[in-house]
């Protein structure tokens, strides 16, 4: 997000000489700045809202270097038989309570699904290991504790259920093969 801000600022300063110093020029700069910021934010938010496959998962076709799976010992909690949602929260997170409500509800109604809420400040080792840059970030673990997919920002029950269905589909298929 900081990178995006500096890109927008860079655009502003590079445009400044052309826009002149008149009031109209400055007003045009403000409009361009706010339009660019809105565009960057809308694209970022749309991308972040989906559950993206983790490239570090051991499934065939995932190219990243494997990251060690989370264990129930590390999490101080049993893993879900179908899947585990690991939510990274923090003290200054405005969206975390909404995501917590969605996932708590899901864990209560779907069998084999567990929701674990992590306070990021207390677990910076996990924040670094799983490259968490913003809260809330949610990792969906397969039954073995490997990260199957991840998302960040606000979360709807529909998207969480879709990610769960995708996970169940792929784990069942890899057992068959």
């Amino acid at each position, binding site marked *: *997000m*900081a990178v995006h*801000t500096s890109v*927008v*600022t860079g655009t*502003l*300063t590079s445009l400044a000489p052309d826009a002149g*110093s008149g*009031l109209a020029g*400055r*007003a045009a*700069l*403000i409009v361009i*700045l*706010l339009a660019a*910021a*809105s565009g960057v*934010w809308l694209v970022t*938010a749309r991308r972040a809202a989906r559950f993206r496959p983790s490239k570090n998962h051991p499934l065939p076709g995932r190219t990243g270097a494997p990251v060690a799976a989370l264990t129930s*010992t*590390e*999490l*101080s*909690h049993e893993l879900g038989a179908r899947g585990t949602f690991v939510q990274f929260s*923090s*003290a*200054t*997170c*405005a969206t975390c*309570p*909404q995501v*917590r409500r969605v*996932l*708590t509800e899901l*864990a209560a109604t779907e069998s084999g699904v*567990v*929701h*674990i*809420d*992590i*306070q*990021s*400040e*207390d*677990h*910076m*080792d*996990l*924040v*670094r290991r799983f490259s*968490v*840059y*913003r*809260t809330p970030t949610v990792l969906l673990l397969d039954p073995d504790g490997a990260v199957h997919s991840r998302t960040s920002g606000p979360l709807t029950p529909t998207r969480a259920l879709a990610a769960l269905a995708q996970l169940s589909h792929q784990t069942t298929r890899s057992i068959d093969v």
Partner: protein
Amino acid sequence: MSDSPTAPIADAQSADTPRPTPAGIDPRGPRFGAAITAALLAITLLLGTGPAATAVLTVVALLFVLGVARGVQGTLQGLAFRAWVRPRLAPPSELEDPRPPRFAQVVGLLVVGAGLLFAAVGFPAGVPVAAAVALVAAFLNAAFGLCLGCELYLLQRRWVPQH
């Protein structure tokens, strides 16, 4: 690493028994405040460089000081929201933790304060640059409810060297 990987993690029950948090605030309050801040920052940009622009940015900095000291609900925008805006709105569907927007006020104060500092030591461009950065954050907050300052919290925690 100071943070042991075997440290106990908040378990699933924590969702049922949340940690004690300060009384919630109406989430529309900070967004209303951000809209006013954004308007002041836009005026700063329109004024370019000079004493007038510096004066308006100083007002914004003072508003951020209030926000840092008392939380967003204690700023002039927060008081205006409670006095004139909230009575006209339906009750909020949910309340928000006041700490994230307060942290964002700290970030805003640092940005605007740096701009004023640059202007004071002979770089007048510091005023419009700082106003532009802060305007993006305040505008995104007012328009979309995105707290850009809050997003920086975890990044800052990651940069803190481990001892």
